[in-house]
């Protein structure tokens, strides 16, 4: 399917967000708890800049995107996720390129930002494929740069698919739906 590239005309792909599975994994169940713990571990790996540990949590068929938002009014007011343009459009290979760069001369993260990723509002559903789970979470990122006393921050919803592989969960898909149409953060040199 080719999506329209017109900025003016939104198609139906621009409304999809939130949890789509109707087979809920209830709060407090063993699977829910294990996935929640995985999300916390992932946030810690990123906040602590343990990129090898983070990459180990990713599947090689990873699709990692962050579509842009566009404000609309009237009948199309909820069609505001533009999946024709992205802030991130990544594969496993490009993530490796990005984490590899961090070990060398990535001035945008050298000196590194001090980040806190707050992950909340976690809702989980079963996917059709066995062992795969749709995990929707809210992300609040606080980022401190250098000696600037003012933090940069960002809020988003993340729509993930985690796959159960060899006793642990691995990320195979992530869509980061940021809330701002104009980002207040000066770059995305950090992962979301």
């Amino acid at each position, binding site marked *: 399917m080719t999506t329209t590239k017109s*900025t*003016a005309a939104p198609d139906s792909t621009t409304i999809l967000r939130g949890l789509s599975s109707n087979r809920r994994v209830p709060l407090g169940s063993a699977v829910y708890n294990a996935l929640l713990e995985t999300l916390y571990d992932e946030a810690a790996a990123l906040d602590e800049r343990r990129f090898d540990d983070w990459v180990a949590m990713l599947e090689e068929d990873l699709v990692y995107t962050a579509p*842009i938002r566009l404000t609309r009014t009237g009948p199309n007011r909820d069609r505001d996720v533009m999946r024709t*343009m992205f802030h991130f459009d990544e594969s496993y290979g490009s993530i490796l390129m990005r984490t590899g760069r961090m070990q060398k001369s990535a001035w945008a993260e050298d000196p590194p930002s001090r980040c806190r990723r707050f992950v909340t509002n976690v809702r989980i559903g079963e996917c059709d494929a066995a062992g795969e789970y749709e995990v929707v979470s809210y992300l609040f990122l606080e980022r401190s740069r250098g000696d600037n006393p003012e933090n940069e921050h960002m809020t988003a919803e993340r729509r993930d698919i985690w796959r159960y592989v060899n006793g642990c969960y691995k990320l195979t898909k992530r869509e980061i739906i940021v809330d701002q*149409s104009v980002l*207040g953060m000066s770059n995305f040199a950090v992962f979301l």
Partner: protein
Amino acid sequence: MLQKSSLTLRDGTKLDDLIMRDTNEVSLRVMTDEELYHHEMERIFAKTWLLLGHESEIPKAGDFIIRDMAEDNVIVARDADGSVNVSLNVCPHRGMRVCLGEAGNKRVHQCIYHGWAFKPNGDFIGAPIEKEKMHGNNVEKATLNLKKARVHLYGGLIFATWNVDGPSFDEYLGDIKYYMDQLFCRTDSGLELLGPPQRFVLPCNWKVPGEQSGSDGFHTLTLHRSLMEGGVMGGTAETIYDQAPGMYGVDVSCEQGHSLRCLEAEKTFKMFADIPFEGKSTEERLNLLTPPGITKEMIPELFKNLSEDQVEQLATFPPQVGGMFPNVLLAFIFAPRTDGGASGALTLHTYMPKGPDRVEFVNYIFAEKDAPEQVKRDMLQNAIQATGTSGTIEQDDADVWPVIMRNARGGVSKHITLKYQALHGEERPEGWKGGGMLYPGFTKDDTQWNWWLAYHKLMSEA
């Protein structure tokens, strides 16, 4: 003898004290001065042509996008007659924005405050309760249109200016048009914007990224060192300064302040495979190394849309990075992939002023309209991974600019000068066909200095 600028700030400082044309220096104070900023809004951003988007964003009658001309918000709309119109998004009644969305399709734009209504071309239709004449007792409706900007489409790019009687778009482009045509007017169907632009705000003055858009090639070796470390530009981490990849070519600029860096294709190609160009025809060269964004199937279109000399240049010295004064950066670059996918990345940025200490970075990503979908898909990914919000090249730029800005506020620091004293001087390479001011060899400060001269000239015209 240089003619003195008439612009003097309230504290007695003259523009000539800030932009020192005898020594090629610019005072860091220009980045923070509020008074200068207000002059810039009137003398530059209300005067020159500004890039607002691409017509592929609004293909149908009634389609509109909302964009900014510096701090002035405008409606860019296609009218029933197919024309593209740019009007100020300010209701002449009480000053409300007439259009609140960022994009959509409307035959009538009605202000949500009191209901005054306008056509896509900005013409006033009327106010509610027609019999009560709420638009005014003895006021001609035609005087209540939205304020209209003058529009020009160039290769599908939408440019507008408030300077209704000013220079034509071609006069504004000047000698750089010959080269820009090689990027924007080279194929039968032209460029297509792949989606709405990425937008983000940086805490710095617009001129911090602005002066860099005047073809600062030199920063690449150090700030963008990771390109060489990752093998994207050839060379290795150890030999960056010895081999200086991408530094040699022909820099082109013109008195209007625009510039382009034309990089020798043979050298660019050498980074990936060692096949010499010698003795090969223009067509053979194009087939060996298609310009960024062009597929082999499109090569005949180049000959159809450009002159023989222009195609020859595209095959040997393709323009790759540069800018249009005052606030456009363009990058039509090679971005090789490891999976054998299409290797080009075509982007344009505008740096829109949002106050003396804020700038909005707007990143437009393109492909040739006639390119196969997979090529467009690859090029979108290339551009996102290299430029804009998360791009590994421009992440580093976005990190430098706000720090320069913080420096510019210091009572002592603001008197430090930016140095543009590494100059090559104009020189016409043998056999070069295009016009403009030419600087062959290692990329130096000449084009960026011309950017400041263009700034000085406009700021001196009241």
